[in-house]
């Protein structure tokens, strides 16, 4: 590349290019890199909010305290459980929806729109709606369950530790399967028709078509969808915040919710920053695992 900028014209072009890119780079540095570095710096020291006490480096003190905090391990467990339960279900639902929407049938446009609806609405809004439906005393689910005689006592959906987690997973799957479907649908539409025609000539069944042609060619889109959704699930905040506020007790308190409480309720930004950095590492590790496992088979 060094040879390409030797001539004056090339050099000028190169400079023009740099001039165009620099403002964007600066903005990205300011709004992305700076906060990330700042979080890491905060997590290794003590400082006061108003700067009245100077920053003091304390090494791994906050991380050591974190390792001793039961509530942190609980939040980590909750976050991983939620991710492990919701992502596979979302993926299965997403592939199913995408295959369905890829078929041609009357009203396909409307069906595609309808599927996208849950994803397009703000999570906080959806979640409040679900909270009403889950309500023990006047919610939809218990009204149906009680009137049909399935149960004789109302089910305490959000008040039981296991049920609360499952209820949260259901909302996540309902809401974000359509996002998975959208990305996978785009992938489906880029698969050449000829492959299926060839397959049909060879006498493949629909299931074989799906396994041998569709799925392998969807690996890219699935990887993208998995990474984006897993990152989302690992940082889930609005969902537990609005549905259960982390309860009952702390059964649905995710890492983000815990970090939020530490920072804004207890005003402990250094300790909170340590939680966020750990969360960052978890997400980073998860992304690496996905990329390595799904790419190596190529």
């Amino acid at each position, binding site marked *: 590349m060094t040879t390409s900028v030797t001539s004056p014209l090339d050099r000028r072009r190169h400079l023009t290019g740099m001039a165009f890119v620099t403002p964007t780079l600066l903005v990205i540095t300011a709004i992305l890199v700076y906060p990330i570095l700042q979080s890491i710096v905060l997590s290794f020291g003590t400082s006061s909010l108003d700067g009245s006490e100077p920053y003091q480096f304390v090494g791994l003190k906050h991380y050591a305290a974190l390792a001793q905090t039961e509530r942190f391990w609980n939040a980590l467990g909750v976050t991983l459980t939620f991710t492990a339960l919701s992502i596979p279900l979302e993926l299965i639902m997403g592939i199913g929806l995408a295959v369905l929407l890829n078929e041609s049938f009357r009203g396909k446009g409307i069906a595609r729109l309808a599927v996208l609806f849950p994803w397009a609405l703000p999570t906080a809004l959806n979640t409040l709606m679900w909270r009403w439906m889950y309500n023990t*005393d*006047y919610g939809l689910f218990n009204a149906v369950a009680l009137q049909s005689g399935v149960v004789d006592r*109302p089910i305490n959906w959000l008040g039981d530790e296991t049920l609360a987690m499952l209820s949260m997973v259901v909302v996540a799957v309902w809401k974000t399967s359509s996002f998975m479907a959208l990305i996978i649908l785009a992938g489906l539409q880029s698969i050449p028709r000829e492959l299926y025609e060839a397959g049909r000539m060879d006498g493949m069944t629909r299931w074989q078509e799906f396994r041998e042609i569709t799925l392998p060619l969807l690996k890219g889109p699935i990887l993208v969808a998995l990474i984006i959704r897993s990152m989302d699930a690992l940082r889930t905040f609005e969902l537990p915040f609005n549905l259960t506020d982390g*309860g009952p*007790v702390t059964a649905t308190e995710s890492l983000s919710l815990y970090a939020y*409480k530490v920072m*804004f309720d207890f*005003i402990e930004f250094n300790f909170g920053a340590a939680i966020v950095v750990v969360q960052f590492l978890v997400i980073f590790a998860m992304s690496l695992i996905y990329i390595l496992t799904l790419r190596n088979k190529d």
Partner: protein
Amino acid sequence: MKPTAIALATAAMLTAVPAMAEDLVLSIGSRGYGPAVERNLARYAEVNPDVSIEWNKVSDVPGETRKLYVTGLSAKSPTPDVYALDVIWAGEFAQRGWLEPLGGLLADETIAAFNPSLLTASTVDGKVHALPLYTDGIHFFYRSDLLEKYGLDVPKTWEEVLEASKTITEGEKNPQFYGFVSMWAKIEGLFMNWLAFTNGNGGGFYDADGNVAVNSPANIAATQYMVDLLHEHRYAPDSILNMRPDDARTLFQQGRAAFLMVQGFVHAPLSADDSPVAGKFDFARIPYFEGNEDANTTTMGGWFLGINPNSENKEAAAEFLTHFTAYEQQLTAAVEDNRAPTIPAVYDDPKMSEAEVLAKFGKNYDLGVVRPSAGTGSNYPKVSEIMQLAVTNALHRQKTVEDALNDAQAEIEAVLAD
């Protein structure tokens, strides 16, 4: 405009130092104090035309407003000059230096007129840091028609509540009907509830010497009563553990509960024309355990007004604060907007006959108790969280009451020693 006001306004305009118009910024939500804010501002403008007040309408969601204040005040922003804050922030904000002590700025008798229980919430190091603007406490609502139907008196003690719940739930023969509902989700309201129960048993957050004593025998017994009410007697629904004030209110309003223990603001929706329980309910003070008739059991909340220490115009801010929280303003807010006054003398005003419900609330406020937010200061959010978790653990029977409160005691001691 009254002639005197016009005269005053004219006089003020003539005597005002020209070109030195003072500007103040007031931060308060638009719903909490309702139309009273606008009226108070108009009244103030009549007598102080040279001071222009900018109303910064902050969110009515406390958490959001708190975030806004934390960022602004910690950065030593000179605005707002005067701001409204939740009762439980007062101690913390005072300790962090985000509230100007009012002693030097306001007349002593101005401060002394306010409800003493409420004032303790903003008193740090013996100095009052904010004035209560309006209050709301928890009350004991009951279905008067059902008590009459079963020939029962209004329960005064928790023991009587059990008996009455038994008679009514057995008589109603409806599995969807409950004796008692309240806000026992893991929220501030749960801590308020716990303080009402424990104070009613001669206990409370502190012992007589002012030391933290959350695991005292009286507190353990009172907390055990809460657990038994739910799990042994089953007079409360399981869902009480996720109920916020309005969830409990809705169940009561649907006619599915005999007793309701939440803040006074539910009185308006309960007595609305389309409410199934309108005219069939009334309220009393929070019950006490036998032998504790004098206990202060009305846990009070409410909003305060304070002055930013970095304000560039503290004298004007103090004058504005005095006017905004004064007797006349509180009386009008009570009669017209149903906001409970924080100056006890207002309740005795003849005009309060137009606000019967508030006047009756006022009697309960004489038995007021506030959360320990002044004493624990900047540690209050942690202390409250510890208490909410402890009581929730006990109510979910994840821990025995004794273990839960012993653990809480140890954790609070550690937090306060830090």
